[in-house]
Structure formats: structure tokens, C-alpha cells
């Protein structure tokens, strides 16, 4: 699960990391008032950042500076409501604009190949790390935390020295360890600070100090671990979530809406992707990825059918079930129920093999469903049906 920058910063702060203050606003007026108080505290400028769960906010114009409360309000008016990669901006983060001396990159990520937590750092912060990795791999420092002992101080020091942060050793070590602590505390699979920055601050007595802080934060959480972190469920951004996604989650269904016309209902993620691939290969376009999960009962099947049909683009449906834990007859019953209730009549091709396939075939025959024996055949017929319907 992705969470917003502001929420990610909240988690980092709770784990003791240095994150300069911020507030979240949903209207230009709220932004104005937040900016007023930040500027009154001595900041020269404020930064206003769109809170969306997609990358490239800066390039899209979703991050702006303002020198006065009025300017902040005007900037916020432009950002709030804008669309970034198809997502409408509904809230912004407001913070004092930092006086940045130098930017770094630091992240902790679950490294699947090494089966360990990987710390990745670079003295080239503020840009996309994928680009740095592709162009100058030597500029990236990596260290694996020990799978039992975690990240040692010595490893954090090594990382800091190699990143050129020897002058801020204690802070860098604290932040590196804090990233791993944050991962473990919330079951995150990514905790990314970009930029990690040395900023210049003027303290109350007029002296200028430099400090290493987390200026941006990105955290993604392991969905499998959410049941043991009920408090994190509140961080799910319902503003950005397709209402169908929430329904699907509730029902135990994996559902992703796509742009095609052929609705797909499959059991198993790999088989669902394969089904999409074969639809495309047969000349069609899948309308969705949908995995009903293992052992689905008829009610879940009916719910999946409702989700598919809620997309008006769908003009044909392909059901592909290879029964293992899932019983073919349960699926057939769900399809029959769903058709009895459905509002519009869309041609459907059903292929059910594996556990209780014979019973399923009988039920489907009795209910006059169109069935197919192989996946290739099912895909071809669904594509043909979609073409006829779309013509």
C-alpha cells in the first residue's frame, strides 16, 4: 500500500528521524493560513507540494514555492484540483522552504534477490535514483542489513562515509538506522528519503547551523502485514482509490481496471495475467485484471461479476478457472447467480477445468452458458464476441 508523503513523514517522525515540520491543507484558504504561520516563524518562503501517490509531481507542476501568504494561496489554487497522471490533487503539504546546502538520496528497500533489507545511498539526491543507477551506478552505495542482527552502526558509518556524509556522521548513522527501524516497525517494503539534505538554519541567537534532515519521504507498506497494523489502515488514501478497489479488497478479490473491452475473471494472478496476454494475442483488449483468489465461493464470484460489469466499456466477458483449491461448481453457481441479477446482458465465454469441472460443466450447460475447452479457444471466442458487440 502506498501512502502520502505527509503520512510517510509522520511515520519517520514517530521513529525519531529528523523531519522538518509540515502541515496538510485541502483548500487555498487553509494553505494561506498555514503559510502565514510558517512565515511568521521566520521562514523566507514556503513550499507547497501536491499530495498524490504517483511520481513526477515536480515535473507536473505540483511542487511550488511562495514568498508570501497571498502567493501561497494563489499557488495552492493552481495545484489543488490539477490532474497529475490522471489523479486529481485534493490536498497539499505546506512547509517552510529549506535552505539546502546539498542533497543526498537514501532508502531502505526489501531486496528480494538477496532476501535482506538493502540500504541504498547516493550523494546525488533530489533526482530519480533509477536514472542515477542507469547512468552512474558507481554513484550509488549499497549495504545489506544482516538478516538477524539488522543494520549495525558500523554499517551505517560505512554507508555515511561512502556517501560523503562523514561531516554529519552521527546524524547520518541515526537516519540510516531509523530507516530500517521504520521498515520493521510498520512492515514497509520501501522507505525512501529523496532528498535527504544538509540544510542551513539560523538559530534564535543568530548563529547559522547545518543539519541533516529528511526533506521528502516515500513509504510503501507490505499489504500482507496490514492485518497486524490496524492503525495504518487509516493511512489508505481513499481520495485516490477507485471505489471498485475498496470493494474488491473487502471481497478478497484482486482487481485492476484497464482500458479494454473484455472483462476477465480468473483464479490466480499468474493465470489472470496469462489470460490477459492471450486476449491481447487474439486481437482483443482486456478491460481488467481480476483474480478471485483461492477457494472462492459463489458469492465472491457474483461480486467479481458485478465489478466487471460496473465498467461500461465491457462488452464481453471471459471466465477462466483452473480448479485446485477453487471448486469449479462453486464458480458455476456464482456465475448463474450473477447472471440472474445482472443489469445488462454481456456475452460471456466460460472455461472451467480442474476440481469439480464436470459438475460445473453440467450446471453451465443447464443454464445455457457458452463454454470453451481450452484457454486459447476461450480467448479467441471472447475476442470475437467483443468484436460483434462493439460493431
Amino acid at each position: 500500500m502506498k501512502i502520502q508523503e505527509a503520512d510517510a513523514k509522520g511515520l519517520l517522525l514517530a521513529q525519531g528521524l529528523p523531519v522538518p515540520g509540515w502541515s496538510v491543507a485541502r483548500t487555498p484558504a487553509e494553505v494561506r493560513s498555514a503559510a502565514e504561520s510558517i512565515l511568521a516563524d521566520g521562514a523566507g518562503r514556503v513550499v507547497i507540494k501536491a499530495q498524490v501517490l504517483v511520481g513526477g509531481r515536480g515535473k507536473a507542476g505540483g511542487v511550488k514555492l511562495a514568498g508570501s501568504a497571498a502567493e501561497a494561496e494563489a499557488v495552492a489554487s493552481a495545484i489543488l484540483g490539477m490532474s497529475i497522471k490522471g489523479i486529481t490533487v485534493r490536498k497539499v503539504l505546506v512547509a517552510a522552504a529549506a535552505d539546502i546546502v546539498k542533497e543526498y538520496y537514501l532508502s531502505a528497500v526489501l531486496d528480494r534477490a538477496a532476501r535482506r533489507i538493502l540500504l541504498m545511498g547516493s550523494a546525488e539526491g533530489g533526482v530519480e535514483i533509477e536514472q542515477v543507477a542507469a547512468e552512474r551506478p558507481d554513484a550509488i552505495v549499497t549495504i545489506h542489513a544482516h538478516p538477524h542482527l539488522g543494520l549495525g552502526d558500523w554499517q551505517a558509518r560505512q554507508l555515511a562515509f561512502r556517501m560523503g556524509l562523514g561531516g554529519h556522521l552521527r546524524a547520518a548513522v541515526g537516519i540510516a538506522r531509523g530507516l530500517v527501524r521504520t521498515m520493521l516497525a510498520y512492515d514497509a517494503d520501501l522507505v525512501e528519503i529523496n532528498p535527504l539534505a544538509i540544510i542551513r538554519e539560523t538559530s534564535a541567537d543568530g548563529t547559522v547551523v547545518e543539519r541533516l534532515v529528511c526533506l521528502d519521504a516515500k513509504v510503501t507498506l507490505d499489504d500482507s502485514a496490514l492485518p497486524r497494523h490496524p492503525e495504518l489502515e487509516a493511512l489508505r488514501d481513499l481520495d485516490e482509490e477507485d471505489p471498485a478497489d475498496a470493494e474488491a479488497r473487502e471481497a478478497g478479490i484482486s482487481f485492476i481496471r484497464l482500458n479494454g473491452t473484455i472483462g476477465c475473471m480468473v483464479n490466480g494472478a499468474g493465470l489472470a495475467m496469462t489470460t490477459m496476454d492471450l486476449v491481447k494475442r487474439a486481437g482483443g483488449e482486456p478491460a481488467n485484471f481480476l483474480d478471485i483468489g483461492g477457494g472462492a465461493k459463489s458469492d465472491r464470484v457474483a461480486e467479481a461479476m458485478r465489478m466487471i460489469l460496473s465498467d461500461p466499456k465491457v462488452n464481453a466477458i471471459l471466465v477462466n478457472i483452473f480448479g485446485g483449491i477453487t471448486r469449479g461448481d462453486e464458480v458455476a453457481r456464482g456465475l448463474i447467480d450473477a447472471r440472474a441479477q445482472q443489469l445488462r446482458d454481456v456475452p460471456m465465454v466460460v472455461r472451467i477445468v480442474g476440481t469439480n469441472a464436470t459438475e460445473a460443466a453440467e450446471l453451465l450447460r443447464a443454464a445455457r452458458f457458452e463454454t470453451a475447452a481450452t484457454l486459447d479457444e476461450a480467448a479467441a471466442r471472447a475476442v470475437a464476441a467483443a468484436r460483434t458487440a462493439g460493431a
Partner: protein
Amino acid sequence: MSVLIGRETRLVVQGITGREGEFHSRAMQAYGTRIVAGMTPGKGGQTALDGTVPVFDTVADAVRETGANTSCIFVPAPGAPDAILEAVGAGIGTIFCITEGIPALDMVPVVEAVRQAGARLVGPNCPGATSPGRAKVGIIPDSVHREGDVGVVSRSGTLTYEAVQAMTDAGIGQSTCVGIGGDPIIGTTFLDVLQLFAADPETRALVLIGEIGGAAEEEAAAWAAEHLADIPKAAFIAGRTAPEGKRMGHAGAIISGRAGTAASKVAALEAAGFRVAGSPTELPGLLRVAGHRG
């Protein structure tokens, strides 16, 4: 012969008295797998599967009393990492963890402990393995199999059944079919299984079934290019048409950056001599083209 499981398998089922554990244990037993013990804390002294299998409180007891050498875990996610460590601690050499939904960070210390003990873990969130005609550990439907000499390795569940069924329908049997699971952190990788097949004299062809995301298929392909040049090989990669940046079902299937795309995997596999199928149904034909006479 076969890999991971076979006639020498003496299985203990952890969580045998649970709904799933019991259901699949019956299926395994019916297939001919020697289930020598069940384990459920607090049910030691009872029996399972109509009195045919003794149940123990601990895996250590099961090993001591029955000589179990392989474990299959159906324990729910919160207790599954502990169940794996218990199997390791009791000296079990091969552990299949069927459980899905284990948080990834829970598995990091566990796979390390398994590695240190010199044991092997398959999964978690995997369908297990079947050596047709010999033994089945896990939940792969019996009906898809046929005895033969093709080693199959896959990280999907039902897609594996689909592919294996296609082979069986075409008269091509399997030596062992291994589902390694699609979770972020798994005990046994494609590469590990290819190495096992390479050492098995009765495996004479290979089928690899991958998915978009990660670099495990590429890693396995690189090894196969060097060590498995002379054996017929076919592969299928799911997710060629999946849009970038979306998680498709389980966490394994996410494309990030260039690595892990279907194109990268297909290219790596073809470079290693795999014939890559456009549909699972093409696998048997490609194996024959590659020289397999099964």
C-alpha cells in the same frame, strides 16, 4: 528419480488438524505420499486421517517417533514463520510452506536460519511439488500430471496447473513439478530448482514458468546458459501485456524500471536456449522442437 520429494519422502504435516491441512493431507495420502505424522500443539496423542496418522505436539516428537524427513506447513500466516523454524530445529531437511499472507519481513530472518541449518524451504505461498507416480506434497491437483521426465518449475499456482495440463494432454510427463511461490521472500528460487534438476538423471527436459517482476528468471537463465546447454528447455512468461507500475495480484508481479519486464525475461531465456511459448498450450510442441523425446 525426482527432486525434493519422492518415494523416500516421509512427510509430517504441520497443522494437520486444521481445515485446509486435513483436506490436502487426505489428497496427498490418496496420491500415495507417505504421511508419517501430523503435528498440532496440544493434540499430541490423537490421530488424523481416520486413524492412519499419529499427531504430535512438536515436530521434534514427530521426527523422533516416525523418522519424518519432509514437512508440509498449513499453519496460518501469524504462526507460519515459527512453524518453519520448528521444522528446521527438529532437523527436517525439506520444508514446504503452503501458507499465504506471511509478511515479507517475517521471512527475512527465517530464510537465513534455514540457510544456516543447511535445510531447504520451498515457499511460502507455494502450491508445493508433485513427482508424478511417486509423491505429492502440497496442493497441486493430481489430475494435471503424468509420469515422465520433464522438470517443471513455476512461481504461479493455477498457471502451473494450466501449463502442466497442456503437457499431460500432449502426452508429455513430468519428473517433478515444483511451485516455488510468488511471495517477495521465498526459500527456493528458480535457480535452485534448475540446479536440482541438473543433478537429477531422470530429468531430461525443463519447463520454466515465470512472471513479470524481479530478476529471478533472468538469474536462472544466466546459469542455465552455462550449465544446461544440452537439455531441451521451454518457458512461458506471464504478464507480457500487464501495464507498467501496477501490482497484478500478488506482490511478485510488479514491473519496476527496466529489469523484470516480460521482454527482459523472454530475451534472457531465449539467449539461454529456452524456447519461449506465447501460450501455455505451445509448451509441449516447443519441447519437441527443442529435441525432447518424452
